[in-house]
């Protein structure tokens, strides 16, 4: 990896990181659900700073081309992120159901008092 590419990649990654932090500051993102994104960006920063690491890990895992290693990592991270979202959605749909029922029950109570 050329030094130029390294610098460009690092700049991009820090931009994304900064963007995410701003979003969290503005409360547009919930910190809880962005943790996996943070881990992803940090891993990418480390790998960009030390490209040798990539080759070492790829060799260790028996992956021929380090590029495939990137694809593999990206895929794993995407799955983790999607899974966190599925968990979040399940929780949310449960909460929505409970709230909907509560609203209906309260409305019924109110009608009785009128």
């Amino acid at each position, binding site marked *: 990896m050329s030094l130029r590419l390294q610098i460009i990649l690092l700049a991009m990654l820090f931009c994304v990181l900064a963007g995410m932090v701003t979003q969290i500051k503005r409360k547009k993102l919930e910190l809880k659900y962005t943790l996996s994104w943070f881990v992803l960006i940090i891993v990418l920063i480390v790998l960009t700073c030390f490209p040798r690491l990539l080759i070492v890990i790829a060799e260790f895992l028996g992956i021929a081309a380090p590029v495939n290693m990137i694809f593999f990592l990206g895929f794993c991270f995407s799955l983790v992120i999607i899974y966190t979202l599925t968990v979040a959605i399940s929780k949310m*749909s449960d909460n929505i159901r409970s709230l*909907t*029922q509560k*609203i*209906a*029950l309260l*409305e*019924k109570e109110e009608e009785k008092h009128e």
Partner: protein
Amino acid sequence: MKKLIIIPAYNEGECIERTIQDIEKHAQGFDYLIVNDCSTDNTREICEKNCFNLMNLPINLGIGGAVQTGYRYAWEHGYDMAVQFDGDGQHDASFLPRMSEAMVKEGADMLIGSRFIEREGFQSSFIRRVGITYFTGLIRVLTGKTITDPTSGLRMINRSVLEIFAKDYPKDYPEPESVVAVLRNKKRVKEIPVVMRERQGGSSSIGNVKSVYYMVKVTLAILVESLRRYK
């Protein structure tokens, strides 16, 4: 003894009046509550015009969420028994008094109105009966109990099961899964022969494509349910 009939209603405008007349005529001693699951037809208007006891969900929750709302209502209002009753005219209210008597007499915690004990009345389509037989078998393997009609929507429960259902009830296609949950909680489930009619209006919530999803989902749900631990 306070007894509540819970009628989940999604677009049952055609039938809801007849259902309530049937209840008022044949099920004396029962209160009823219509849970309108955000119908898009005139179900709400018809109920309000007739001053039926109605509760409106602000968003559509599906059958499980709607029935559970009824259970929560029954739990909060101190009902001793609650029975689910379909709004589409399939169920016959004259069985309700018999069911509540049988429930007390046989000491059951849950009583299911089964179409397949005396095999009278509308027996559902062949394909559906195959599915129902499969669920009966699955439940027998997993719990050792025989439930001839695990998909029956006509089910009466007492307060101990009400407590379970008010807290936790499956979202969609809840019938077979919730029977397993009740059995796993070591409650007594009994069945009583009933006659059901073909639906009088509205359409089934389970179409052709959905029935595949139904079989898979309910099978998985039953399997997971039998893995849960209860005190």
